[in-house]
């Protein structure tokens, strides 16, 4: 079972809750995914739409809430959002996200490290969202991050594991769980992340914008299980030369 900080998880698929077209679809997709950890964001209430409250459909007792600091452009803004999330009763878990550039949404490594140091001191269980940078992953681990969350590709792009090589180095070096977050566009991307040894994946866009998000959530759940099982089974080595699967002997009878 996956263990992060003091919690264990049966499911290695974490689900983001953004961009679903209805609360009902979101609820069913969470169930179909089997996820035990879901991410949420914090935003100013729209006073003209008070009934639009996601907490009406999400059961806090069933899933661990992982609030993110999306929208934060630097460490200071991220820390402020983190403290608001804690005040909102989500506990100490936090997906730290510092993205100064709205065009790429790539995380700022320096501000992310600064915020991690401050939030760990303040008792938060910090899961930082990072570019797939093995050096930064180690620095964050040393700073007390409970896990590291390297991106497969930029947020919302569905481009898949374009950072595969760097993520493999991160997995090889990490003492904390590695959760591949962002950019996974298809179940096969999630399976690949799991096959190379990721401890879990976090998926949102690929599920929420699918033709049938509930079915896609189930498809990702199966892919994550298959990928994990393959990792545990141990993949065979790749070779540039062919190696016959059928015996090469016992063919004398067909030879002239």
């Amino acid at each position: 079972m996956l263990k992060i900080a003091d919690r264990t998880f049966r499911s290695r698929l974490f689900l983001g809750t953004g961009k679903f077209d209805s609360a009902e679809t979101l609820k069913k997709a969470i169930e179909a995914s089997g996820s035990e950890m879901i991410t949420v964001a914090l935003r100013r209430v729209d006073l003209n739409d008070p009934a639009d409250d996601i907490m009406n459909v999400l059961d806090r007792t069933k899933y661990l809430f992982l609030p993110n600091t999306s929208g934060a452009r630097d460490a200071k803004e991220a820390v402020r959002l983190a403290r608001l999330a804690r005040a909102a009763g989500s506990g100490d878990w936090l997906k730290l996200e510092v993205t100064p550039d709205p065009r790429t949404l790539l995380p700022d490594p320096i501000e992310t490290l600064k915020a991690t140091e401050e939030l760990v001191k303040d008792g938060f269980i910090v899961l930082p969202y990072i570019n797939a940078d093995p050096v930064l992953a180690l620095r964050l681990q040393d700073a007390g991050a409970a896990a590291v969350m390297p991106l497969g590709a930029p947020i919302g792009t569905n481009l898949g594991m374009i950072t595969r090589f760097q993520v493999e180095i991160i997995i090889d070096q990490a003492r904390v769980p590695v959760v591949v977050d962002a950019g996974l566009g298809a179940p096969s991307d999630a399976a690949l992340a799991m096959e190379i040894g990721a401890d879990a994946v976090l998926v949102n866009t690929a599920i929420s914008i699918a033709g049938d998000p509930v079915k896609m959530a189930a498809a990702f759940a199966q892919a994550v299980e298959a990928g994990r099982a393959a990792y545990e089974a141990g993949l065979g080595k790749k070779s540039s030369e062919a190696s016959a699967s059928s015996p090469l002997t016992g063919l004398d009878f067909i030879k002239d």
Partner: protein
Amino acid sequence: MKITCNGETKEITPDTTLVSFIRDMDLNPDTVVAECDGSIIKRDEYDTLILSEGNVLELIRFVGGG
């Protein structure tokens, strides 16, 4: 008297508590976090905090996100 809430000016009566203001906005106090003049207000203080003229209030809550 007037306060600012989420960037909008709101008229309130004297001795309005934070919890009653939140309910007047048709919001659930248990799913809303409040910041008053830049400080986070703890949930157990919602019932006793009396809003005063010129307060700048931010009401925040969880939304879908990745």
